[in-house]
C-alpha cells in the first residue's frame, strides 16, 4: 500500500473527497464493517502506476475506483508546440508497447488532412511492422499476465520472444521503442539490407513459439482456474463502456477496424478476426493467442509483397517528404553523413530546403479529422485539428487503454481480490496510454 488510508479519514480542505463513496451516509465516517485499501500506485501487478481504491468485505471486492493520472506527461499539449513531423515523436511515447500504432494513427490523420497517401511500398512496410508490433505487445500481455498469476516461465518466454522482435525494430529504426519511424507521407527510410533475412527468421520462428505457449497454458489447471469465469464483461456492457479490442471480441462482437473500416491497405490482406463468446479472462487469452497467429499471417503476406513493391517509401512532394537521406546510427535514425556533406559543402539550395523542412516543416490545410486504427488494445483514435499552420492545433489521443480501464470496476466488483489481478491483467492496460 503506497498511501496510508488514514488520510482518507476526512476530506482535505477544499478538495474533492475521493473516498466519498466509501463513507457511511449518516456519520460521514468510513464504513467499519468493510475495509478500504489502496492497491497501488506502486504495485507489481497494476501494470505501472495505477491505483485502485478497493472496498473489501473480507476477500470480496465490493467497490472499486481506479485512480489514474500518475503518468500524465502532457503529450497532447506538447504536440501543439511542435511541428507536424515532431508530433510523431511525441505520440509514439503514449502507449509505449505499441509505438507503431500510435505513429500510424497519427500519420494517417495528418495524411488525410493533407489529402495525400503514402506510396505502396511504405504501406506494405507499415502493415508488416505494425503486425509484428501487435505480436510483441500481446507477448507482453502473456508475459506480465502470466507472471501475475504465478506462471513465471511464461514471463521469461514472452519477454524472450519480444526481445527478438525488438531486435528487428532496432535494425529497422535504430531504436527498440519510441521509433518515430512512420512519418506523414510514408516511412522515414526503407528497410535496411539485413532486415529481410531477420524478418524471415522471425516469421519462421514465432509460430512454433506460439504453439509452445499454448502447450504451457491452454490446459494448465492453475491458469484455467485463475482465468475461467473471471472478469466477465458481457458484450452489451462492453459496448456501453466503450470497450474495444480483444476484450470486446472475447465477448462475441467481431469488431475490428482493420476489417470494418480498413485503412492502409488492410482490405487487401487475407486474415480472420478471432472471436470467442465466454467474455472472461480466459477467452481474452485465447483471442490474443489467435490474433498473434493472424498477425503473423498478415506479416507473411506483407513480407512476400515487399519484393514486388519497389519504389519510394515517402511521397515525392518535397513540401511534405523529409529531406533525404537518412541512415540508422547507434542512437536511432539520423542524417546520413554523405547527405550532410552534400548540404554543408555542395548545395546551398539543399541546405536551405533542409533548414526549412527541419525548423518549419509541413504546412497542413485547416480542418479536422478523426483517424482510428486497430491497436493491440482496441480502437486507437486520433482527433487532429489543424488551423492551417505548421503545428497541430489540437491532437487528442483516444487511447483504448484509457477507455477500457473504465470497465475494470464492472469486471471485479463482487469477485475476490485475487480475481481483480487476473481481470486487470486480461484488460492489458498500458499506463503510458491511459495517462498520456
Amino acid at each position, binding site marked *: 500500500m503506497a498511501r496510508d488510508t488514514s488520510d482518507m479519514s476526512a476530506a482535505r480542505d477544499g478538495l474533492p473527497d475521493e473516498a466519498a463513496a466509501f463513507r457511511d451516509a449518516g456519520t460521514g465516517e468510513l464504513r467499519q464493517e468493510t475495509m478500504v485499501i489502496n492497491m497501488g500506485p506502486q504495485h507489481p501487478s497494476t501494470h505501472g502506476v495505477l491505483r485502485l481504491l478497493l472496498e473489501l468485505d473480507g476477500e470480496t471486492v465490493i467497490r472499486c475506483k481506479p485512480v489514474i*493520472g500518475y503518468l500524465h506527461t502532457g503529450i497532447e499539449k506538447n504536440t501543439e508546440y511542435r511541428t507536424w513531423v515532431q508530433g510523431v515523436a511525441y505520440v509514439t511515447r503514449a502507449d509505449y508497447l505499441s509505438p507503431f500504432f500510435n505513429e500510424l494513427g497519427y500519420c494517417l490523420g495528418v495524411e488525410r488532412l493533407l489529402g495525400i497517401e503514402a506510396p505502396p511500398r511504405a504501406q506494405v512496410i507499415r502493415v508488416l511492422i505494425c503486425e509484428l508490433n501487435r505480436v510483441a505487445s500481446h507477448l507482453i500481455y502473456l508475459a506480465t499476465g502470466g507472471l501475475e498469476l504465478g506462471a513465471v516461465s511464461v514471463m521469461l518466454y514472452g519477454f524472450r520472444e519480444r526481445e527478438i522482435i525488438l531486435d528487428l525494430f532496432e535494425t529497422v529504426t535504430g531504436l527498440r521503442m519510441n521509433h518515430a519511424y512512420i512519418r506523414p507521407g510514408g516511412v522515414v527510410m526503407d528497410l535496411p539490407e539485413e532486415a529481410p533475412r531477420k524478418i524471415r527468421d522471425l516469421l519462421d520462428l514465432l509460430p512454433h513459439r506460439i504453439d509452445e505457449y499454448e502447450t504451457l497454458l491452454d490446459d494448465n489447471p492453475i491458469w484455467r482456474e485463475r482465468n475461467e469465469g473471471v472478469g466477465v464483461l458481457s458484450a452489451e456492457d462492453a459496448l456501453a463502456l466503450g470497450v474495444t479490442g480483444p476484450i470486446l471480441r472475447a465477448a462475441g462482437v467481431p469488431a475490428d477496424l482493420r476489417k470494418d473500416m480498413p485503412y492502409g491497405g488492410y482490405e487487401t490482406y487475407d486474415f480472420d478476426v478471432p472471436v470467442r463468446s465466454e467474455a472472461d479472462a480466459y477467452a481474452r487469452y485465447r483471442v490474443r493467442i489467435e490474433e498473434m497467429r493472424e498477425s503473423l499471417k498478415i506479416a507473411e503476406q506483407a513480407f512476400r509483397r515487399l519484393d514486388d513493391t519497389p519504389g519510394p517509401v515517402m511521397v515525392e512532394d518535397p513540401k511534405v517528404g523529409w529531406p533525404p537521406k537518412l541512415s540508422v546510427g547507434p542512437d536511432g535514425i539520423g542524417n546520413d553523413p554523405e547527405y550532410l556533406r552534400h548540404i554543408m559543402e555542395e548545395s546551398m539550395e539543399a541546405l536551405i530546403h533542409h533548414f526549412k523542412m527541419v525548423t518549419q516543416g509541413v504546412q497542413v490545410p485547416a480542418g479536422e479529422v478523426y483517424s482510428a486504427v486497430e491497436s493491440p488494445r482496441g480502437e486507437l483514435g486520433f*482527433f487532429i485539428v489543424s488551423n492551417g499552420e505548421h503545428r497541430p492545433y489540437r491532437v487528442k489521443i483516444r487511447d483504448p487503454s484509457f477507455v477500457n480501464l473504465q470497465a475494470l470496476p464492472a469486471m471485479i466488483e463482487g469477485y475476490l481480490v485475487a480475481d481483480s489481478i487476473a481481470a486487470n491483467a486480461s484488460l492489458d492496460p498500458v499506463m503510458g496510454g491511459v495517462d*498520456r
Partner: protein
Amino acid sequence: MRPEELAGRVRPVVPDVMVARDEVTAIVDRARLLEILAWCRDEPDLELGFLSCITATHWPEAQPAFWVSYELRSIAKLHRLRLKVGLSEADPHVPSVTAMFPTANWLERETFDFFGVVFDGHPDLTRIMLPEDWEGHPLRKDEPLGGVPIWYHGATVPPIDQRGMA
C-alpha cells in the same frame, strides 16, 4: 452508409451537416444534444450506439470559444458521425451524456480537467489526470506549456529555467 448518404439522412434532423474528407460532422445546439444523440443511437439504419470519443478544442477570442465533439461509431453499420457543440467562454456548460453512454464518464472528466468544460449532471465531475488541487485547465490555449512551478503538497520547486543553477 456512405458519408454523403449519412449526411443526407441526418440533415432533416440536424440541418447543419457537412462532409469533409469523407467524415460527416453535424453541429448541434446544446439544448438538443441529448435528444440528437438518442436519435442517432435508436434510428435502425444509423445504429450509432457506440461513443468512441469526447473531446474539446479551445479557440480563445472566437465565438464559440469551445467546440465539444462527440465521435459516434456504428459497430454494425460501419460508419461514423461526429457531433459538435459550440460553447461560449463565459458559459462552458453542456449536459452530460453519461447516463446514455457510460463510457462518457472518464472522457467527460478528462475534458473537464483539460478544458474546464462543465458537464451538467455528471455523477463525479472531478479531475482525472491532474492533481485534484491543480489550478487552471492546461489544454486551454491561454495556458502556457511548461514554466509552471513544480509543487508537492507543502513545498514548491521553481520552474527549471528559474532555479538559478549554473
